[in-house]
């Protein structure tokens, strides 16, 4: 097998490498747009558990292998370069601006997913490289910021297919275990819900100051208010979504949204790491 010297840049020349990188990136980008055009949005449901776990395993194996061969592989070196960092951040900016002006952001499109996958892959590689400083000490702040972002972004990206949003019409004094998906598919819950009371309070100006529904969930009476959902399990949360506006305080039903997000604690872990990293950044100032 042909073995290249340690520094490939020396062999190929900086300019040639950049042209080669631009070519590969353009081909990938065009491919994602072609697939989008031909096949439409990504069938997200397909990547639900366990396929997403298997895909992550494969992805991490490839990244690990790339990382180990970083001395020989130009692909690894390109993915670890400052140019890749700039491209990742530029992609984030482009996604932000696009989603910021679109009426319905195309978050499940192939180009958007390709961009996110690139950002995540680059992040994983630079995090592996930057774990320790030149003296072998763990770089806490670097790890908090970069691993935190991998977890926060990655959990949303890979866990999207396992997220479920259901809506149930919960009537006063009538038990129900029926909920509906966004596509109006019926889903039977393994517990029942009954609304026992609904109340609205007002400011003196007449605008509502609070909405509250008392709902019996699986035999337990809970209060559902805006900003105060009910965590039924570690992954399932119930929200007061809407109510019978015609009858206000005498509302005959309320609409409860059931959100199942098994990956949520990974997101939280990532967010907490990023917040700690940000606090450290303020306290210690920019380094390096």
């Amino acid at each position, binding site marked *: 097998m042909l073995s290249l010297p340690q520094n490939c840049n020396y062999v190929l020349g900086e300019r040639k490498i950049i042209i080669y990188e631009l070519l590969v990136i353009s081909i990938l980008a065009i491919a994602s747009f072609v697939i989008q055009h031909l096949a439409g949005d990504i069938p997200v449901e397909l990547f639900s558990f366990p396929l997403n776990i298997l895909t992550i395993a494969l992805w991490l194996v490839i990244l690990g292998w790339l990382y180990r061969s970083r001395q020989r592989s130009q692909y690894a070196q390109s993915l670890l370069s400052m140019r890749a960092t700039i491209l990742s951040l530029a992609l984030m900016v482009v996604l932000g601006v696009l989603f910021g002006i679109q009426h319905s952001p195309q978050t499940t499109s192939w180009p958007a997913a390709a961009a996110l996958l690139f950002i995540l892959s680059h992040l994983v590689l630079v995090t592996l490289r930057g774990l320790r400083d030149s003296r072998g000490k763990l770089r806490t702040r670097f790890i908090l910021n970069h691993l935190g972002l991998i977890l926060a972004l990655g959990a949303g990206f890979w866990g999207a297919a396992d997220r479920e949003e259901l809506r149930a019409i919960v009537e006063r004094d009538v038990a129900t275990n029926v909920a509906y998906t966004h596509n109006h598919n019926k889903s039977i819950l393994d517990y029942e819900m009954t609304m026992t009371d609904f109340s609205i309070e007002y400011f003196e100006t007449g605008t509502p100051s609070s909405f509250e529904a008392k709902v019996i969930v699986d035999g337990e009476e809970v209060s559902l208010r805006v900003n105060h959902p009910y965590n039924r399990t570690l992954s399932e949360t119930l929200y007061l979504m809407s109510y019978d506006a015609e009858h206000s305080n005498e509302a005959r039903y309320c609409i409860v949204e059931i959100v199942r997000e098994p990956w949520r604690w990974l997101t939280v872990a990532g967010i907490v790491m990023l*917040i700690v990293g940000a606090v450290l950044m303020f306290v210690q100032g920019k380094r390096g």
Partner: protein
Amino acid sequence: MVLGWNIFPFVAAVAVLLSVVAAIFASLDKERGRRIAIASAIGGIAILAAFVAMLWLTLERPPLRTMGETRLWYSLFLLLSGLVTYVRWRYRWIMGFSTMLATVFMIINIAKPELHDHTLMPALQSPWFVPHVSVYMFSYALLGCATLLSVYGLWRPSAELDKAINRVMSSGIAFFTIGMLSGALWAKEAWGTYWNWDPKEAWAAATWGLYLLALHIAPQRRRIYYAIVIAAFLSLQMCWWGVNYLPNAERSEHTYTMQR
């Protein structure tokens, strides 16, 4: 309009006057002038802070709901971060710039006062409300200072200036990150999802990306660096108030002033 807001022009005039005195004394670069500058700046900040506190008490809710109210905090934090930058890094003209920018925002508030009433819609009644918005306003002020320094840098670039921009900006980014992520945690409580690509969230992501870009390339390409810091601040304006004027604003869950 409740009692309290009508005295704002006087409060603003005194705060601006003290800040201008502070800026002038700071620019003299003399040790005695420095003490007068700091004392005068603290006086201006204290008067504005007292007004915010009084508004909070009379409204019986945190004054962070309307754009006008956030502008008020912005002016306050701008003067504060200008003072901090001056004390910490001895940039003698930064207070002049921060005073100018704070004055613009106070004038907007005098010219276009918004409804300040007691109501705080249920969606905003959360322990996350005050930290989320005030941390953001503080970061906007720091990032505003970094932008002023960068505009200056386009004319007179220097390594010394880069150091100051980097420090002020990285503190701004730290607060921006905390504001954004506290928002994500709040969004899960309120709307059931950490991130929904709501227009404001999307522009926050774009802004964050631009600032991180500046942070990562600093300080190799000086003018590009200044340009990115300035572009990031423009994106920040979209995130803060520009989104309200976009055609897709109606799908935003972040509009709290247009109801009623």
